[in-house]
């Protein structure tokens, strides 16, 4: 046993056991390993075990094919028409992933743009007469049901997203029953285009936000699918 061998961690030899038993070591390593084997009972036992396992597996009965696996023209045509489903699926999923990425980006940008438009619109609206302000509140209550849901009328009147304070006199009657006041205001017909503009702006914002959420969700699913399909 070589002097240097005393200082080599034994794990190194253990790692060579299987390669040695399988005839996969190069000549130099074979010489070194056999020199080590000369003095190491444990490794000799490991080599014997490796050889026994290999024989056990190599001599295992061969499971015969249960049927013929000949390739038919029909099989080849099926493969040709619809690309191997793994590849096709991956292609489809990648395309969907890219598309949903793009859609998510666009939708988020659109939403941000609409919010900016809304904000700049509401600042000018504050300078106008009360009708515009009322129209804004109306639109708030109509198009932002989630804000209004469960909120007390008093809280509702404070929860104006844009943070501009609505005129007090309009608020009074609506404090008791927001929806009726809303209808009343509609009947009196605030400037139709401004009101309609506010509503459609809200709706557009909601649509953009919903699209963004859906696109992001779709992207996440597609990403997961494509990751699995990668080799």
């Amino acid at each position, binding site marked *: 046993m070589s002097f240097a061998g005393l200082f080599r961690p034994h794990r190194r030899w253990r790692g060579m056991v*299987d390669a040695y038993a399988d005839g*996969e070591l190069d000549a130099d390593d074979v010489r070194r390993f056999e020199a080590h084997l000369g003095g190491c009972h444990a490794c000799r036992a490991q080599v014997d075990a490796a050889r026994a*396992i290999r*024989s056990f*597996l190599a001599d295992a009965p061969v499971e015969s094919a249960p049927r*013929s*696996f000949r390739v038919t*023209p029909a099989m080849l045509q099926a493969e040709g028409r619809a690309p191997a489903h793994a590849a096709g699926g991956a292609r489809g999923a990648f395309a969907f992933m890219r598309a949903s990425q793009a859609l998510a980006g666009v939708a988020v940008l659109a939403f941000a743009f609409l919010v900016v438009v809304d904000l700049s619109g509401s600042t000018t609206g504050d300078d106008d007469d009360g009708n515009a302000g009322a129209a804004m509140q109306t639109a708030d209550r109509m198009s932002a049901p989630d804000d209004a849901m469960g909120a007390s009328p008093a809280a509702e009147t404070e929860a104006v997203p844009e943070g501009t304070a609505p005129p007090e006199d309009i608020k009074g009657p609506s404090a008791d029953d927001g929806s009726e006041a809303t209808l009343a205001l509609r009947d009196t017909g605030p400037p139709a285009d401004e009101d309609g503009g506010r509503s459609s702006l809200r709706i557009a914002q909601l649509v953009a936000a919903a699209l963004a959420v859906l696109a992001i969700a779709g992207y996440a699913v597609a990403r997961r699918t494509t990751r699995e399909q990668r*080799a």
Partner: protein
Amino acid sequence: MTPAPESTDDHLVSLSKDGDLDAFNSLVDRYQDAVYNLCYRILGHREAAADATQEAFLSAYRAIRTFAGGNVRSWLLRIAANQSKDELRRRKRKDRAGSLDQYVDIAGAALEVADPAPGAAAIVERRELSALVQRALDALPFDQRQAIALVDIGGLRYEEAAEALGVSLGTVKSRIHRGRDRLRGYFRSHPELLEGHWRLDE
């Protein structure tokens, strides 16, 4: 049906490259047992192994022009090992939709077989022995099982296995080493299986 003397592997391969499907199917006849056996040892599931085998031959035919010569059997087994992993993935994906228990054995858990064999000398049934082999292999994680099946059952060299699986030589060495370590532990609890060497009584 014994193949004609001129139907050597190389001859059949060159005919296949020219689009002779019959010639290719002669290769299928010749090697389908070896391919199916490897797929079965890797997957531990007969139906999955059959699917993987068919895909392997389809894949081989489509790729026959890229075959640069050498051992046809090794080449087919390399394709089979990869198709086995693909088949496992396909089935796992389908599982998300529903039933799954049948694939527990694919994941590497031990197969349910009859009671452990009484002892080496008493084992005469080929089928029991085969089940024992599979049970031992199923004790391994997939990557180790796949590597050991390729090398010990398929007879491939480490380098061929590394090339087949698209991993480094070091990775193959490591998988073989760890897989054999696990099998050593498995056999320690079933010492009768490795007494001397296997011998089937007549």
